[in-house]
């Protein structure tokens, strides 16, 4: 993958919506119900979406998952939610 990385994210999110529309009567990923979203992500993770177009599904999954993990679990709030002492040397003043 080569910078600028925004191009990759645009292509990845576009691929997700394209697959979502194809499988769900034209609805974008954000318009799906939770169960439908999970089903699509699980298929994408295993490279099982037929007609997938764009960056490889498993790679898109890994990258977006990593970012989501950082956002949900990698912040001071995320640590607090898991009951783990954050113990910063220098605490971040902003989450990112």
């Amino acid at each position: 993958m080569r910078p600028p990385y925004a191009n990759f994210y645009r292509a990845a999110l576009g691929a997700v919506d394209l697959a979502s529309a194809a499988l769900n009567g034209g609805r974008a990923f954000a318009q799906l119900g939770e169960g439908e979203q999970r089903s699509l992500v699980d298929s994408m993770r295993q490279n099982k979406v037929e007609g997938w177009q764009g960056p490889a599904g498993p790679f898109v999954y890994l990258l977006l998952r990593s970012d989501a993990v950082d956002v949900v679990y990698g912040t001071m709030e995320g640590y607090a939610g898991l009951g783990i002492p954050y113990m910063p040397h220098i605490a971040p003043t902003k989450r990112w």
Partner: protein
Amino acid sequence: MANEKVDVVIVGAGASGSTYAAVLAMAGKKVVVLEQGPDWQLSDLISSDFWGRRVKPAGAPFLLEGKNPVSYGYQGGWGVGGAALHYFANFPRLLPNDFRIKSEHNRAHDWPISYQDVAPYYDKVARDIGVSGDAKAEEIWRPAGDAYPMPPMKTFRNGEIWLKGFESVGIRMVPAAVGMNSTEYKGRPACIYDGWCHVGCPIGALANPLVTYLGDARKAGAEVRPWSNVTRVLTNAQGTKVTGVEYYDQKKERQVQEASVVVLAAWAAQNPRLLLNSSTDRHPKGLANTNGLVGKYMMTHFSSGTLAIFDENVENHMGTTGAQYMSYERYGKTAHKGAFGSSFIVAGTALKTSDLGGFANARLDLFGPELAAFMKRAARGFSRIGAFGEEMPNIENRIELAGDKDEFGMPLGRIIHSYDDDVPKLWEANFAEGLAVAKAAGAKEMWSGRGNIPTIHLMGGTIMGTGAENSVVNSYGQTHEIPNLYMAGPGIFSTSGASNPTYTIFALSLRGAEQLATKWSTVAG
């Protein structure tokens, strides 16, 4: 305005460049260090995986090809301190058997030096920058040397819990040697065990270059120029000597820094890229590359991680990102039946939630509510151990210049890397043993950290040897072809061993820099 000519220009302010800078500046040489990235201060090292991304590789990308493309998001650096600004500071050394694989097994190649040539420098580095550990305990596997200047680090339940498992399969674990302070050392404080080493230690308890050799170099007058993107090494008309380097400054303006000696101490992939891009009529294949060996024999380590959940609170947030315990018990090249290559074993790692080492990555298949449930359980009882494996050098694993160029007009580098058949065998053998250890340790759940075979710690590309017929540099890092051009870092390793490379990088850099200082007039004259 032209830059004033200096004695030595060093490209890269990581572990190796910092060591060269310190030795040469303290020897009275005028030293300039050109660093591609920013000039980090300790206060920039925020305890956060998000913020820690700032010290990971940026700049022109490398194109990654082969059956096992090299992943370099974690093993490289960006800015002053290089990868050693965020390394785990595990300080195992290479062992005597690493230096003579050809002689003992008719595989790969021998180093042109022996363990005994490097050992005094391991000891000296330990004194210079501070190493904690128990040398006596290690000496069941290696020749005796000096004691480490500090006692071993504290241990925690997340490390101790594995010990009976290792014992049951006959693996002796000893306190890990680490480049960290178990006590105050040379004015730097003792570690406080909060596990943020991997995004940089801002208190200086971990021996990063800023608080060790680079700090010494600056005190001795070395100048560090950040945001200096070196594109070519320059030579005289006859091609017999290097005369300096071309680089682009923060304003993206071309600069030339003349010097009597050039030391390339950039990343192991970047050094060959620079040599290949420095071709002239006299050196049509690139500098130091008449034999075509520049960029060849790239090597990586791979790790077999065994992951487990215990039915108790193992306090996995406590400790350091480096290991609490280590073992060379499987370091023999044929230690695992049916496989070839050394394995180096570690246990006891402080864990965070996210990023490469985070325990969210212990189950990559989980997302959403299932991941949330796993994270809750893992926060209490998750721990892991690892075995690093050795890849044999293969001439097909290489760096080349690509057709595409970066913003300075320099061709991008392409890293082509494929593991040979030995690697999966060793990888599997270490997985199998890891699961046996986990079972005997009483883990409630245990699994192997599979996926693609990882590629960590890039080495080779400008390997050392006995002469131009088999290598790019001699054992000091001096190129066979151009005496005032030195290479530094893991690129000069002849073979990779299985030990984390940075202790050896420091030791070989100290050895090379001291030789250069001693023979200055013949090299630079």
